[in-house]
């Protein structure tokens, strides 16, 4: 840590002021947040008071990925305290203290692993020094255990008793970390720190925010691409419980005293829309895909060797086209946000994965400096990428600035499902040429995405193992808004690629696992061009999943294999399918994950199982159609979510090799559609090229 003594004092002073406000608006125990004298905040991540209370601050937004538990686990391990001793608090946005206060890209642990360890180890060293000074012994003769410093002659001093003295010491610049064999908390099963509040129904989420003087609002949004021409608000304004009806940016906001009053008013609101260009439909999107596939304007993302020449020499050519629709994120907690805009300051509160960009966006919109905009981060009822977009934050802020009231804007499920920033719709075309011995000599991929950016991942496997490669991308602009959706791009590219490689293996007469291993062997000896993955780590998850799933050793069970590298982690899967009453049923998925060090085994299993269920559910059921710029379906009665009676057994294993931890919120999702589709093929000889399967 580069924290200097002066910084520390400044930060302590800062936090004495800020943290007594607390993050939890309802059950805030102000005294629990107070920093006791100078023996309080040691650094951004932790404080210890003279009574021995250890508070660990988790800066990153919690969307169900378990970061609020995982971060403190790392600090507590190096601090060497008993987990039962610690209290965990969500830190609000503080750009001075924290560098990456966001949730996205499965990047939090990768980014913060060293910082968290240092935060804990530094304070542990200060505690030992304080004790050594007190006992007049050399610090190297002292040890720690469970929040107590142990001296050479059997002396004992708790961290609490040492806190005040320790806080006056210079902050050490060099610290040593624990050997991982001595870990007591890291790698164990640690329960979610919010469990107690969740199971007793505490108001933790954005939708639960209540502030003095607050009003409620819902916003009626136009079809994609349409403009608001007029709306009839006079009758609506007279309805009971309605405070105001205002319009901004083609939207109409109904402000009211309670949710039901607003819901009723909405039913009476009439909005007329127009548009300069024809509004988009699913047919429009299909036409764009067709055109994109024929276009000569593709951007070349990667070129190794000479694909065109090589494919001409191939003894067999395999081609396939894959396609996925726009889908909604549909977190169980629909979008919502609280804003209280005053003339020279703003309070924002609610579920955002990106508090700092939210602050910046509101600052730009309202021309109020960022340092006058406070952001409170609530727990989130799921995110899946949806809360990386700031549209709903900006709406709340703009509405509050218009009505000059603190307001909670709530989206109904229908608003949430039709309101955009979807997973982009994408079509892929793959082509592979194999020689007489079944080796892939040429590989081609074109992705055509609708507001997808680069819909390929041009440096990912099997690239690096093939001499002649051409990868192209076309991004077609659409009025339908898109955004990152759990494992952006790879959530479908992973399926398409792994399904295609299965087809290639079959055409080459090779076992799909052996084919991958042979390709990786090639990468290990002489990679072609730039690669982003480590072939040895790829190989390990493949070998382990083959063993754990008893690949091809289970008579009567149809298996499908896939493996994918994303967010710096590696996941191999084998899915099993049985045919029941003539229909394929996914009965089991075995997954082996290399995400480096497993910080919290319970949380890690949750992420892997959850991502597999997510991947399977969306591959099987999810689809939005468009007609005149409007998405349908708009609720769970017709937009099918996977349910508890449809999930296979999931056997989740971890390589747990001690490498610095990498992402886990997303990586288990991309291989899922592929392992399942390949198992369905093994069972039925029917290949899936489109999602959803059903």
């Amino acid at each position, binding site marked *: 840590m580069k924290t200097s003594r002066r910084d520390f004092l400044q930060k302590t002073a800062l936090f004495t002021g800020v943290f007594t406000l607390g993050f939890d608006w309802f059950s805030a125990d102000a005294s629990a947040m107070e920093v006791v004298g100078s023996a309080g905040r040691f650094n951004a991540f932790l404080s210890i008071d003279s009574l021995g209370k250890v508070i660990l601050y988790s800066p990153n937004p919690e969307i169900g990925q378990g970061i609020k538990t995982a971060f403190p686990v790392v600090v507590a391990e190096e601090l060497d305290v008993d987990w039962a001793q610690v209290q965990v608090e969500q830190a609000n946005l503080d750009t001075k203290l924290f560098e990456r206060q966001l949730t996205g890209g499965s990047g939090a642990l990768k980014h913060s692993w060293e910082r968290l360890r240092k935060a804990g180890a530094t304070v542990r060293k200060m505690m030992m020094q304080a004790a050594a000074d007190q006992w007049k012994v050399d610090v190297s003769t002292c040890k720690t255990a469970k929040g107590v410093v142990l001296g050479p002659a059997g002396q004992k001093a708790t961290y609490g008793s040492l806190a005040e003295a320790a806080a006056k010491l210079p902050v050490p610049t060099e610290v040593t970390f624990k050997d991982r064999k001595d870990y007591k908390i890291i790698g164990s099963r640690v329960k979610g720190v919010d*469990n107690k509040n969740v199971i*007793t129904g505490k*108001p933790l989420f954005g939708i*639960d925010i209540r502030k003095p003087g607050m009003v409620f609002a819902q916003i009626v949004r136009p079809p994609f691409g349409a403009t608001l021409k007029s709306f009839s608000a006079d009758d609506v304004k007279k309805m009971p419980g309605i405070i105001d009806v205002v319009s901004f940016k083609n939207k109409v906001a109904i402000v009211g005293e*309670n949710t039901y009053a607003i819901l009723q008013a909405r039913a009476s609101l009439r909005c007329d829309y127009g548009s300069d260009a024809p509004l988009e439909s699913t047919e429009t999107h299909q036409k764009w895909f067709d055109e994109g596939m024929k276009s000569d304007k593709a951007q070349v993302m990667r070129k190794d060797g000479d694909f065109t020449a090589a494919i001409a020499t191939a003894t067999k050519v395999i081609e396939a086209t894959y396609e996925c629709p726009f889908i909604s994120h549909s977190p169980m907690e629909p979008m919502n946000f609280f804003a209280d805009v005053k003339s020279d300051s703003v309070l924002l509160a609610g579920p955002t994965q990106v508090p700092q960009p939210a602050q910046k966006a509101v600052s730009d919109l309202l021309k109020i400096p960022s340092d006058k905009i406070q952001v409170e981060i609530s727990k989130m*009822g*799921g*995110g899946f990428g949806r809360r990386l977009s700031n549209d709903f934050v900006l709406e709340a802020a703009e509405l509050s600035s218009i009505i000059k009231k603190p307001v909670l804007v709530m989206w109904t499920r229908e608003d949430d499902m039709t309101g955009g920033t979807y997973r982009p719709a994408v079509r892929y075309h793959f082509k592979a040429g194999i020689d007489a011995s079944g080796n892939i000599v040429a590989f081609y991929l074109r992705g055509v995405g609708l507001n997808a950016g680069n819909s390929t991942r041009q440096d990912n496997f099997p690239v690096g193992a093939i001499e002649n490669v051409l990868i192209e991308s076309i991004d077609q602009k659409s009025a339908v808004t898109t955004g990152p959706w759990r494992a952006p791009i790879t959530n479908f590219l992973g399926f398409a690629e792994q399904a295609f490689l299965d087809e290639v293996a079959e055409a080459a007469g090779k076992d799909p696992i052996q084919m991958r291993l042979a390709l990786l062997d090639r990468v290990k000896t002489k990679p072609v061009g730039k690669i982003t993955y480590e072939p040895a780590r790829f190989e390990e998850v493949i070998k382990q999943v083959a063993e754990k799933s008893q690949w091809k050793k289970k008579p009567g069970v149809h298996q499908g294999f896939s493996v994918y590298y994303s967010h710096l982690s590696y996941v191999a899967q084998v899915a099993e399918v049985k045919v029941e009453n003539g229909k394929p049923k996914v009965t089991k998925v075995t997954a082996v994950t290399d995400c480096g060090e497993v910080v919290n085994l319970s949380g890690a299993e949750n992420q892997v199982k959850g991502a597999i269920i997510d991947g399977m559910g969306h591959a099987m059921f999810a689809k939005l159609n468009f007609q005149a710029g409007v998405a349908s379906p708009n*609720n769970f009665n017709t937009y099918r979510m996977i349910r508890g009676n449809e*999930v296979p057994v999931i056997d989740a294993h971890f390589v747990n090799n001690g490498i610095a931890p990498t992402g886990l919120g997303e990586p288990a999702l991309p291989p899922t559609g592929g392992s399942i589709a390949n198992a369905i093929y093994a069972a039925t000889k029917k290949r899936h090229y489109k999602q959803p399967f059903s």
Partner: protein
Amino acid sequence: MAINCTVNKKKVSLDIDPNTPLLWALRDHLSLLGTKYGCGIAQCGACTVWVNGEPMRSCVLPISAVSNAQITTIEGLDPAGKHPVQQAWDELDVPQCGYCQAGQIMTAAGLLKNNPHPTDQEIIDGMSGNICRCGTYHRIQEAVKLASKKIKK
């Protein structure tokens, strides 16, 4: 005319539109925020509460239908979190985002009240009306089993 009912053993009087769904009466008028909105059309189960001891979807239940009824929400199941279902949920670390879990817990506790020792299939069937977007389904099913064990035969 006000609707009178009992919520978590407290008598309440709701002088609001009798068509108001119980969910919004609880959340907006009684400040009981534990019961969650998920879909508004009785499809996801996030809003599950007990009406006279039976799990019901509060998002489609007008308060006119709960006159004189005994209503139990997640806040009233056991405020200390000691109900066997709550304990099992914590022990097996069920929640991910946690948003749907109040509805899951009220459904599970209702299931076990009527059938304290369900078979695996009864658990799967009994819980499949509740959506969990994070996919905590396995742990939900295991936790119902664990809670069932905690309820003495």
